[in-house]
């Protein structure tokens, strides 16, 4: 299963980015292999619609759990419609918050 964590940089020691639509990177954690993959958020500097664009991106990648700080109303609509479960995290390193929440991913 794929878990997405919004991150300020492209490695697992990076801090969680509390913003969703305008986060710097998406960290994808694979619960089966324990591997991380990082994607730059192309919507970060969009004039508008950053939330829906980011939501489209993670939904398209088949993410099932999203860990981030705050979702705007449009992003929330997309994330809910895609059936992605939300875990609110505002700070901490990516790998630390993953380790902490791991038990609840299933």
């Amino acid at each position, binding site marked *: 299963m794929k878990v997405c964590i919004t991150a300020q940089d492209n490695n697992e020691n990076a801090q969680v980015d509390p913003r969703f639509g305008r986060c710097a990177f998406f960290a994808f954690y694979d619960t089966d292999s324990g591997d991380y993959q990082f994607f730059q958020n192309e*919507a970060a500097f*969009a004039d508008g*619609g950053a*939330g829906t664009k980011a939501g489209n991106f993670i*939904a398209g990648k088949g993410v099932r759990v999203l860990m981030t700080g705050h979702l705007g109303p*449009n992003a929330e*609509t997309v994330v809910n*419609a*895609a059936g992605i479960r939300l875990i609110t995290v505002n700070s901490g390193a990516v790998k630390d918050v993953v380790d902490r929440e791991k038990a609840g991913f299933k």
Partner: protein
Amino acid sequence: MKIAIASGKGGTGKTTVAVNLAAVIQGSCLIDCDVEEPNAALYLNPKIEEINKVELPVPRLKEDGCSYCGLCARLCAFGAISVLPGSAAGKGTLLVFDHLCKSCGVCMGLCPERALKEELRAIGTVETGNSCYGTFARGQLDIGEVAAPALIRVLKQKAIYAPVTIIDAPPGTSCAMINTINGVDLCVLVTEPTPFGLNDLKLAVEAVRKASIPFCVVINRSMGDDEIIEQYCRAEGAEIAAKIPFNMEMARRSSEGGLLCATGTVFRDYFTHLAEKVQKT
């Protein structure tokens, strides 16, 4: 001749200058493009003769045909569409975020299944009429709507222009202001002698220069020492077309909905002089 009364900063006196200019120029036209809070009518008391609803086309899914391929969502530059592919369990989902849609039509035009149709969505009204000073038009964006530029473009088409048309612009230098000043012959930038006034005047000057529109500056609420604005205007070669003093009587008149030019010769002169100047430009 079309003259836009603009400013970077809100509350500098755009409407005050616009309505008083329109009132001292016989047979003028006033267009209130501040569609999020149009208030020129409070001063000019126009009789509205026609009200037109303004609608924008937004995409809607036809009853069938959509393969949920997601092309429309990827093409939409504004993030106004989300497509969630279907699974074995059921059909996909297509979401349209109306407020993000700019009605460009790309999604409907390029859908390989032709599965999207156009639906009209009301965003506000355009009203036209007459005041005792000339023709009048204003736009009113519905509460909660954001498509000010689209409404302003319709308003500028529907207005009945006069030899001199005064356009009251929205504050700021964003799309609404740019759509308002597009095509005018002159911008009058109203500012006040404060650091905020100067900061936002600089932004407005940058915007009108990019649009290649001639401009002049009006200093409102002048308290004698306007060096902060004058120094900038000297350095930029910008003309200061008028200074309107900070005056208790004028403030009172304005807050009662009265026209300053109807209050007395002294006040009237500020605007007749400005009217002469801007018409010569």
